[in-house]
């Protein structure tokens, strides 16, 4: 019985991490939560306002609009980048120098700092001196500082250019880890390329895709730098993401109480979306219900069974 008992002392090894996380995440989170409950006017002048800031944030039409916009943007990004990433990963060479070269080329956008990506695209899309802007203007009117659609499409294309490689690399790594035996078995069965993808590759890629989906969702839901540099949230507020709006409130207006409440609600929604994605994608892999009847009952039965045997043995021995 005791041999089965788990030794949990290894948990003490986690203590240093707990300590670090306390300073990098928990205390800052506490500070944010703390600010969200009070209106601080000065060093010694503060007013406890309870949940007022939360109510103000939840009923603010600007924040509601930004939330809807951000959800739409994130869904569009996932809808484009995940299939595109899988498609590109399947096209990439499997071995040799071509594979190495393809990996380097694909990874280039990932190593560029975010504000540099923004600046590059800002210049690239200018209708007077930008290659992309001038080119598109030959066919149709394009001006991202005037047209909402142009600004939105530019953000979408830029993000796709910047982050699809992440999905591609993850999927590529996932594809490489599938044993050749699966492909050989599929070939013997005469499976079509589509069937191989559907029944061999896709199930094997599930975990990798889940990571890609979570990373892309969280990143896109927190997107700040690129749209800030390219459109500044405009025209109007048509590309203003939640992060941009939050920064405006926190730093521009120095409304720390409202920003604190906003941050906590933002945090909550990222938690909810990520949990839903994670749960849905790991539904098949989740460990099943504990099947045996409650352990205590079985233990009790075993103990009851042992006793008569023991007493019989003792009698025999006597």
């Amino acid at each position, binding site marked *: 019985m005791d041999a089965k008992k*788990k030794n*949990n002392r290894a*948990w003490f090894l986690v203590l240093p991490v707990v300590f670090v996380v306390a300073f990098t995440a*928990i205390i800052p989170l*506490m*500070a944010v*939560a*703390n*600010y969200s*409950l*009070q209106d*601080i006017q000065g060093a010694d002048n*503060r007013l*406890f306002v309870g*949940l007022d800031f*939360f*109510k103000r*944030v*939840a*009923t603010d039409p600007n924040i*509601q609009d930004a939330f809807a916009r951000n959800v739409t943007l994130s869904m569009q990004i996932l809808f484009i980048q995940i299939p595109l990433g899988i498609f590109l990963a399947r096209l990439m060479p499997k071995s040799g120098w071509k594979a190495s070269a393809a990996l380097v080329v694909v990874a280039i956008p990932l190593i560029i700092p975010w504000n540099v990506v923004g600046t590059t695209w800002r210049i690239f899309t200018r209708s007077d001196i930008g290659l992309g802007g001038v080119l598109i203007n030959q066919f149709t009117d394009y001006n991202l500082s005037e047209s909402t659609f142009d600004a939105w499409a530019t953000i979408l294309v830029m993000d796709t250019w910047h982050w699809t490689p992440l999905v591609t690399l993850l999927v590529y790594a996932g594809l490489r880890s599938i044993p050749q035996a699966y492909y050989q078995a599929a070939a013997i069965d005469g499976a079509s390329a589509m069937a191989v993808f559907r029944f061999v590759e896709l199930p094997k890629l599930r975990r990798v895709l889940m990571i890609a989906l979570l990373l892309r969702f969280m990143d896109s839901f927190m997107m700040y730098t690129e749209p800030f540099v390219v459109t500044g949230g405009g025209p109007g507020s048509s590309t203003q993401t939640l992060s941009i709006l939050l920064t405006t409130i926190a730093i521009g207006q120095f409304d720390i109480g409202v920003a604190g409440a906003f941050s906590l*609600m933002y945090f*909550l929604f990222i*938690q*909810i979306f990520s*949990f839903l994605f994670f*749960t849905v994608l790991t*539904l098949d892999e*989740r*460990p*099943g*219900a*504990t099947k045996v009847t*409650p*352990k205590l009952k079985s233990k009790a039965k075993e103990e009851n069974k042992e006793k008569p045997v023991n007493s019989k043995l003792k009698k025999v021995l006597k």
Partner: protein
Amino acid sequence: MFDLFDWIPWTAPIAYVFIGVAVMITGLTIWGHYRPPVRRKGFLGIVTDRSERVYIAIVSFALVMVISFAIVDSDTMIWAISALAMAVVILIWG
């Protein structure tokens, strides 16, 4: 000397909430050590153990509260009690 608490004007409710969460996590860890959690499927439709239900209950509670904030002139107390009841239902039958 650097004062550990004076760098920010702390409020009591935040202390209660965070101490509550810390106690809950510690309690669940100790409980899990002596009574390993039983995984089961409730009305949520997914197999969960007790700590997962605690997480779902807390997040659901917070979500209901946020929804209540978005409704103009809603009574926070009534919503909080309803959300708490929902959290308890998730904990027991979820």
